[in-house]
């Protein structure tokens, strides 16, 4: 099988600008999304994922104007998430060039919507985005970023539910490891990959090339995603867009 492991930069949007977080807090302004798209385009990255972290909290609809401009520049697949609650908005996003739409808080609130979306647009067009946080005892719970707290939902059970409702992929994000460069949460990734058949994208904590390899080889993830890893450089966390060399990636993913 020559399907390459996908390596996906995740770009967070706030007020039309790119930001990065640590533990979903401590926001840093990272710059203009269009230029980031252009640079990633030139670096021939596999895929991009844009998440608007404000839309749901402020009850706003997706920023279609920005998506349209991204669509004009991106010659690789890009996904979009944040504030999506109805099929019309999804349809509009697809027409603007979005490859996949990611559902997060609305999927927690109304899992049946995932089914509707998958039915209308096909499973491969919808991603269930699941944020995970551990409690004091180290147990994992689904995190709801709207109120900034853990739910009583078990991530594995929720992932299975999303798969049943038709999600084509699951984006599994560790809140604790977000922006820390400490490595992925292999434990929860493994638990989820063993329980579902759809591809899992690991996110949260990537700090070095080896981390990407571990998520796949030890965690069983089908794809790896990262934010800070591709956007910050060095001890001062200087904003600088980087992407690993294709040969280095091949080496880290092969056993």
């Amino acid at each position, binding site marked *: 099988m020559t399907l390459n492991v996908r390596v996906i930069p995740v770009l967070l949007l706030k007020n039309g*600008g790119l930001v990065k977080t640590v533990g979903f807090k401590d926001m840093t302004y990272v710059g203009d999304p269009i230029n980031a798209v252009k640079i990633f385009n030139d*670096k021939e990255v596999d895929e991009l994922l844009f998440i608007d972290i404000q839309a749901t909290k402020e009850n706003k609809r997706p920023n279609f104007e920005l998506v349209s401009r991204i669509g004009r520049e991106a010659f690789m697949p890009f996904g979009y998430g944040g504030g999506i609650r109805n099929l019309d908005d999804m349809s509009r996003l697809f027409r603007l060039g979005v490859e996949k739409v990611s559902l997060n808080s609305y999927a927690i609130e109304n899992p049946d919507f995932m089914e509707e979306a998958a039915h209308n647009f096909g499973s491969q067009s919808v991603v269930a985005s699941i944020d995970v946080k551990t409690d004091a005892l180290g147990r994992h719970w689904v995190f709801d970023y709207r109120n900034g707290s853990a739910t009583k939902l078990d991530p594995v059970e929720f992932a299975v539910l999303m798969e049943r409702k038709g999600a084509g992929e699951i984006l599994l994000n560790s809140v604790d490891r977000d922006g820390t460069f400490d490595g992925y949460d292999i434990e929860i990734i493994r638990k989820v990959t063993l329980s579902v058949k759809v591809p899992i994208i690991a996110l949260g904590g990537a700090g070095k090339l080896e981390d990407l390899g571990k998520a796949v080889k030890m965690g069983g993830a089908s794809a790896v995603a990262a934010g800070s890893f591709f956007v910050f450089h*060095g001890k001062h966390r200087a904003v600088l867009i980087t992407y690993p060399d294709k040969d280095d990636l091949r080496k880290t993913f092969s056993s």
Partner: protein
Amino acid sequence: MFDSEISKAQKSGSEYMNHQSYRICKRCVMDTTDPEILFYENGYCNHCTQALKKLRSLPSGQEKANKLSTLVQEIKEKGIEKKYDCIIGVSGGVDSSFVAYTVKQLGLRPLAIHLDNGWDSELAVKNIENICKKLEIDLYTYVIDWEEFKDLQLAFLKSSTPDSEIPSDHAITAILFQRALQEDVKYILIGTNTATESIGVNAWSQGHADWKYIKSIHRQFGTKQLETFPHYSIFDLMKWKILNRVRLIRILDYIEYDKLEAKSILQKEICWKDYGDKHHESVYTKFFQAYILPTKFGFDKRKSHLSSLICADQITRDQALRELKKELYPPQELKEHIDYVINKFGLSKGEFDSIMNTPPKTYWQYPNYKKTWYYKTSRAIYRVAKRLLNP
């Protein structure tokens, strides 16, 4: 000798319409697209004449080497017990990249600073990555708020003045000094150099340090408040230089700097990639210099770059003329960049066309420092103070 005539021309706010018939210098390639150019009887122009005078007054050989080692010694001493002994600006371009290389060769401990203004090309970003990784230099990036910066850049476009790089240049200077103060570093080493940039054309570009000018353009054409945009006044600059004793040093003037040789060394040592012409590490700079300047303003900045290289004996006049014959912008790439720039600015094609069709204006047609009494007075005071404090 010609200075008073030059300054008279500047102050009258001369137009860009060429009143002279076309003429090109016999020694360099500057021509009447600079409306203020002056020719001697032998056919040489004021630009190369002044440039050569400047170049010849610079130390060379052993004297140059001595000055360099004295400077390096001084930087190292002042930097003892500090995290960094100097600050360098990096853009991914050949000059600043070679500064980074040189600085490490000299055993200094630099902090590299990059200004992300939203226009970095992938090549520039990759070059910066290689500089920092391969030369083991710490990096700090300042990301300008894109919405503010876009507003300011658009204002400059609408003002129809010929230098749209001023917002970036002004911001980077502010950041370099501000960071120098933060890190308690007294030396900022920059890539500007006399060897390849001895010729500057006022009619083509001025106002970089002029916050009054920048603000006035923004007041007239901008729509957003500039709340976070890094800036400084001439008083700030004086304070930094005189009170805080921070020195801005053209380090490349202290070595034998040959651009071609520099490119080849960088390519070999740190996998540096060349993107063709000067300053094309920024998509916007390329677009502005290779399209807007020739099309709207009627001049080609390559002439001043190449003329500088001629004066520095790095290329011949024939080579320069051949370079100028080369296409500025392959048509397909131009189309892509026009679309990209319009898309990025959120302009319609009609709005862009109207900007392109607005007649050019000059620095002198907007409020600026140089017209003020306090500028003229403080400049005089600054000159005196500089001579007293730094004999």
